[in-house]
């Protein structure tokens, strides 16, 4: 089958359809241009690939299992496979990208690494690879998030990173990202910025998607071993910025029979005023260096989103996902805080796996995708997105729930 559009590859300026580009001040031009002109040559160099793949295997613990979730499948009347990114070193898929970027930074001769983090998962994954390579690591984290995510702050410090509070603006992930970008502006020569998601100026969205694409690369051969076919009918993943979804979708983007389902955080409800469902609430705009969908006021000021899951609490979305939404290649659903919590407890009891709150949003959408859904989704579910008893549904279980125990404990007290 031929496809007229390619979803995998942005154009030379970094656009996926209408979204992408590199909206950066001149002070960042040299660094971003250096990356843009070199990243593909560096990461497809044989020696790079050898080191990258051996670290993914020996250090991060890849391939991660593709697990047939029998009891969950029975509950929903279909065939559900969990891609166990929660079993990666550091507890989430984030390390796939940080391993790739630290090797890239090394080849660019950079001596200093900066990163932004929300919940702290990307910060921990960055601090981890910096320790591995003996490189200085500075992580920007919103002052409010530092208070909310104390264990991850301690992990980063134990790994030798310096955690700098972002005190500007709303003091959360978007402000941590601003501060990291400002650091890069002020340190243009020796520093590499490891962005944690498929956001930022070109080439970051494409580069991070390529590093995360190992997820769908593995799903294809694992599924072939288990079912005889490389192609599932559905791939489900949660989306904040969208890195685990980009990785889980990547090798299925050009396979039109595979239904891609992205699940955003609805917070208290899409229209409650406390939500992070960017495709439902956002408008085209520019945030952190790329044109995408952005949650903003009528006057173009970026608003603070809300989600129980810090990893989905971002007012933008990667340009690839904005394009998947705009072109309808992907179905974009959302799950509320409450639905995500319910799904987390359900998985724990049905399969003995405690998922991260982020991944729980993807699990929650299984409810909406049933042929006869008792709980309608806030976002309309396209008829062809529903599964049947014969479907093969892969859910990207992007991270484990240890970091969310405080939230789960609170939920148990009130249940």
């Amino acid at each position: 089958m031929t496809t007229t559009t390619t979803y995998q590859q942005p154009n030379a300026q970094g656009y996926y359809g209408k979204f992408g580009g590199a909206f950066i001040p001149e002070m960042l031009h040299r660094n971003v241009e250096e990356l843009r002109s070199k990243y593909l040559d560096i990461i497809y160099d044989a020696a790079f690939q050898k080191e990258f793949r051996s670290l993914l295997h020996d250090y991060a613990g890849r391939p991660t299992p593709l697990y047939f979730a029998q009891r969950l499948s029975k509950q929903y009347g279909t065939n559900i496979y969990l891609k166990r990114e929660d079993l990666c070193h550091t507890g989430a898929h984030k390390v796939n990208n940080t391993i790739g970027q630290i090797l890239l930074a090394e080849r660019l001769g950079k001596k200093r690494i900066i990163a932004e983090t929300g919940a702290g998962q990307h910060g921990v994954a960055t601090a981890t690879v910096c320790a591995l390579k003996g490189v200085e690591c500075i992580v920007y984290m919103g002052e409010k998030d530092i208070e909310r995510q104390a264990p991850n702050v301690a992990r980063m410090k134990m790994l030798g990173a310096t955690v700098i509070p972002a005190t500007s603006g709303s003091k959360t992930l978007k402000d941590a990202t601003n501060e990291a970008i400002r650091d890069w502006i002020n340190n243009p020569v020796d520093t590499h910025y490891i962005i944690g998601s498929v956001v930022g100026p070109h080439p970051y969205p494409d580069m991070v998607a390529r590093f995360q694409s190992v997820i769908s690369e593995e799903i294809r051969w694992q599924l072939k071993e288990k079912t005889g076919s490389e192609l599932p009918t559905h791939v489900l993943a949660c989306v904040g910025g969208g890195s685990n979804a980009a990785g889980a979708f990547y090798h299925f983007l050009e396979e039109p029979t595979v239904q891609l389902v992205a699940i955003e955080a609805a917070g208290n409800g899409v229209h409650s005023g406390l939500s992070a469902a960017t495709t439902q609430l956002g408008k085209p705009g520019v945030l952190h260096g790329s044109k995408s969908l952005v949650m903003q006021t009528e006057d173009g000021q970026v608003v603070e989103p809300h989600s129980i899951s810090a990893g989905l609490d971002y007012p933008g979305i990667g340009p690839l996902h904005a394009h998947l939404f705009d072109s309808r290649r992907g179905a974009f659903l959302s799950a509320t805080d409450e639905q995500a919590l319910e799904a987390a407890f359900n998985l724990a009891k049905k399969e003995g796996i405690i998922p991260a709150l982020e991944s729980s949003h993807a699990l929650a959408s299984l409810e909406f995708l049933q042929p006869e859904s008792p709980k309608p989704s806030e976002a309309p579910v396209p008829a062809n997105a529903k599964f049947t008893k014969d479907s093969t549904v892969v859910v990207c279980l992007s991270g484990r729930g240890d970091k969310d125990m405080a939230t789960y404990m609170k939920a148990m007290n009130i249940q």
Partner: protein
Amino acid sequence: MNRINELFKRKQNGILNVYCTAGYPQLNSTVPVMEALQESGVDMIELGMPYSDPLADGPVIQASSSKALANGMTIARLFEQLRDFRKQVYVPVILMGYMNPVLQYGFEKFCQHAADAPVDGLILPDLPEYEFETEYGPIMQRYGLDFIFLVTPETSEERIRRLDSLSTGFLYAVSSSSTTGKDKDMNAVDNYLQRLQKMQLKNPVLVGFGIKDKPTFQQACSHANGAIIGTAFIKALENTPDVEGTIKKFITDIKS
């Protein structure tokens, strides 16, 4: 001839351009602050449109933006404030801001209202050259607005020439790779400005970032047509009970 070209034709040295944030310190300070700046003898004004996520700016200017937004400043309100402002303000005025609020307002509508005000040019640091050339530049040209590109010490000579050829009005030389409001090594700045001077660019050059007082202003002016002061001025306005008096003193100290 527009006000910017007219200014540079008349005066080639020691041009003082001062940045102020619209809607700061009070919502309705925008035009009075510009008037006071003009009366104190500034040659040009860079009027900042506040944004929630100003990437190229340091904490002082971001704080002034947050204050202005809290005061209720919006682009629509700014154009209301600028209605008839040319009865009082005759110096060239450049609007500086970020792409997102401008896109949200509507790029063409924004240019139309800017030209109606009329202001003379735009600085949008996160508008890249590709999008400028293919999409937004022609709109600005249609409304007769200058667009000023930034160059930094990290910008290659080839790229400086290219950005100079795209720029109209003047070229904004960022004194060192940094956000606004950081102290600079003025010797390194000197070398960089001499390099720019030797290139004999099409546009006049104004230096910004790190210019904060008389010595730094004079040094910047020794190899460029003038300089832009932002952070130091905003800092001077913080918590002052007498805005007009503070402005007069601040500018006089620099120009004396």
